[in-house]
């Protein structure tokens, strides 16, 4: 550890949050259908889109209608992507001549990209054609992110409304977030990244004769275009097997800094957009403060953990035994630690070093950041939505302590909202721990694990945590491309995505119908340090306690084994 490392981590996390502020104001204007400086170019495109698709963007939908539109869109997106994957062999732009994808992998991959998870059971450069990567996967990178943003837009309207019934129009939220926010930012970022060395072309590969006289085949792909939205959309699925550790996806410390900021900034922007659209800027600033505090603590823990002596290097007598296994020379410990926290705190899942080779507490903290509910800042919109659910729960807990009916952002919190909040929060541990337990006892379930001992259990637990949390990162040694894993991980992704979405929309539906109350003397202040402390407590207790027994058998026990192995030398 050194000051440079701490400074780099602080800068990366801080810049992402700071950039989220102006971007959030812009995002809120887009959700609210206010004018933007992009209107002259994009308004005609938007109008044409609505006309072709038969959409009336001004028709405000109730929560059931909004939810039905969302499900219908995602369902058709799934069907289309599944078909594309199965038919890959006969579709164009397939210079490598890859065959169609097997049914279980196609199911897993289609679910994965529609749910904004981007879990990859496959190696990109050895499985997917350029057509699949672009038309199939890149498209879902955009629209799955916009789907998440739509949830936050709807929930913000619900808190802003006073005895209304509509929470906005799903199609308008989807189209406007995609066209005005995600697309322009992605174009600028992608072209800038090409300038910094990211590859972008349609060839299959380049063959060269090396200095040794051997031949080397170098895979190339339209990388920059997918990379930009993979980060900005908080998706995380790489073109190449090793994702953002690949020098073509992340060539330098500069690209690393920029793409690391991109992992978080639109997640934070959705926080600030929610605050502006719900007329609750101060309250949302408190939520963002709680989020960045936990995230910074997580990044710090990972950095400290990675700087501990690595047992294999100690045993070989290396004088400076830091854990460079799975890390790139240009990044080192601090870049990898900051990235690991950001990618798991947001529901991104791209990696710039191999998480399976992290030290036990480094990998364990990455897992815990996902278990906390993907709210630091989580996905675009989906993060702030679940964070608001956490805040509602915190207010409810405080209300129980003092015996008052709680309210949040001027809306009374009653039994129905708490029930849906519990559904949204409990489905995550149920899926994570349930599928993990099932896999442990399933015949051949453990055959896919790569590492022996406690690390093997961590691989398994990490996989179901990542899938349910819609993160998508992995302890990469696991051989997940088998029917059992593809199916169960696919189901975990579906449960972890759509049950919380429906629950949040139900909360929005009941909130929008309530009268907007002015704060009274009995209202718990939800802006100060006291509330931030309460919220952090609720998040950590909910996350940590549910998973502690499982974590104790994985990363925690492995940590003590590492200490023992190091002291034995």
């Amino acid at each position, binding site marked *: 550890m050194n000051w440079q490392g701490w400074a780099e981590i602080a800068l990366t996390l801080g810049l992402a949050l700071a950039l989220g502020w102006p971007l959030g104001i812009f995002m809120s204007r887009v959700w609210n259908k206010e004018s933007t400086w992009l209107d002259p170019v994009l308004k005609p495109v938007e109008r044409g889109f609505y006309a072709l698709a038969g959409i009336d963007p001004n028709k405000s939908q109730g929560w059931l209608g909004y939810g039905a539109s969302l499900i219908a869109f995602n369902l058709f997106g799934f069907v289309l992507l599944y078909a594309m994957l199965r038919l890959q062999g006969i579709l164009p732009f397939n210079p490598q001549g890859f065959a169609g994808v097997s049914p279980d992998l196609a199911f897993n991959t289609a679910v994965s990209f529609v749910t904004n998870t981007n879990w990859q059971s496959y190696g990109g450069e050895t499985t997917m054609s350029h057509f699949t990567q*672009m038309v199939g996967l*890149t498209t879902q990178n955009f629209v799955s992110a916009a789907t998440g943003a739509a949830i936050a837009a709807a929930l913000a309207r619900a808190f802003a409304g006073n005895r209304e019934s509509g929470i906005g129009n799903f199609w308008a939220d989807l189209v406007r977030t995609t066209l005005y926010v995600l697309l322009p930012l992605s174009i600028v970022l992608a072209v800038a990244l090409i300038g910094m060395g*990211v590859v*972008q072309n349609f060839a299959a590969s380049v063959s060269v004769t090396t200095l040794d006289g051997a031949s080397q085949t170098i895979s190339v792909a339209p990388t920059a275009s997918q990379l930009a939205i993979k980060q900005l959309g908080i998706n995380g699925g790489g073109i190449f097997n090793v994702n953002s550790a690949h020098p073509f996806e992340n*060539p330098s410390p500069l690209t690393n800094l920029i793409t690391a900021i991109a992992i978080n900034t639109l997640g934070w922007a959705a926080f600030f957009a929610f605050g502006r659209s719900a007329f609750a800027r101060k309250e949302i600033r408190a939520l963002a403060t709680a989020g960045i505090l936990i995230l910074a603590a997580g990044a710090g823990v990972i950095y400290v953990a990675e700087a501990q002596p690595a047992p294999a290097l100690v045993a070989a007598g290396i004088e*400076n035994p830091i854990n460079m296994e799975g890390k790139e020379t240009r990044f080192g410990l601090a870049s990898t630690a900051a990235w690991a926290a950001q990618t798991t705190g947001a529901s991104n899942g791209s990696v710039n070093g191999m998480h399976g080779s992290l030290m036990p507490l480094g990998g364990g903290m990455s897992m815990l950041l996902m278990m906390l509910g993907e709210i630091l800042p989580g996905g675009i919109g989906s993060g702030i939505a679940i964070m608001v659910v956490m805040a509602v729960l915190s207010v409810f807990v405080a209300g129980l302590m003092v015996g008052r009916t709680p309210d949040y952002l001027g809306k009374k919190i009653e039994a129905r909202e708490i029930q849906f909040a519990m559904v949204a929060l409990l489905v995550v541990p149920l899926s994570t721990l349930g599928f993990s337990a099932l896999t442990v006892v399933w015949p051949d379930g453990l055959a896919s694990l790569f590492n022996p001992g406690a690390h093997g259990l961590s691989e398994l637990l990490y996989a179901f945590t990542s899938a349910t949390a819609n993160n998508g990162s992995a302890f990469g040694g696991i051989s997940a491309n088998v029917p059992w894993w593809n199916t169960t991980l696919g189901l975990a992704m579906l449960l972890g995505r759509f049950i919380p979405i429906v629950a949040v929309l139900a909360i929005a539906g009941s909130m929008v119908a309530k009268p907007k109350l002015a704060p009274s003397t009995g209202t718990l202040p939800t802006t100060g340090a006291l509330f931030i402390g309460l919220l952090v407590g609720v998040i950590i207790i909910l996350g940590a306690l549910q998973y502690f027994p499982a974590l104790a058998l994985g990363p925690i026990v492995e940590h003590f084994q590492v200490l023992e*192995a190091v002291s034995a030398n």
Partner: protein
Amino acid sequence: MLNQARPAIVSMLLFSVILGGAYPAVVTAAGGALFPAQAEGSLVKNAAGEVVGSKLIGQVTTGPGYLWPRPSAAGDGYNAAGSSGSNLGPLNPVLFERVAADAAAVRAYAPEGAIPPDAVTTSGSGLDPEISPEFAALQVDRIAAARGIEPSLVEALVAANTEAPLLGFIGQARVNVLMTNLALDSAYPLQPAE
């Protein structure tokens, strides 16, 4: 649900055209026009004008007169069509064996000096084009001997191909292996094998 079908189907298809077709096409065209070398993969040529690799992709070099890269877990080593890390956990016995073997390999040519961690670990991508300045320094004497030149000349070329962290604190100092080797070849050509 049926009245949702048209907007769902048509908007998904429109998005596929705009985001899956037009967007990558625009980015590719702009990238190719503004930054053709990078868009093609930052390929580099030797003095004879032959493409010998990419500045960004590591490759195996075994001759004693060349700088050697880190160990690699991509295929048999630096398989640039199948990037991969080792994914070995910190306590995996395979990792202990491999690190010990890699350390012994370094000791075979550099009996003195501390071995830096990157010399005995595989990178995340298996394609790491760079090594630490410490790892490069360990190889200087071997390279100088193979080329029959003073070590200080090798050191100077290594230094010329070393990049410092961005702004002094972002990322790490590192030496590009292929670029250093090309510089060595052009400044101090290897004698043809007898």
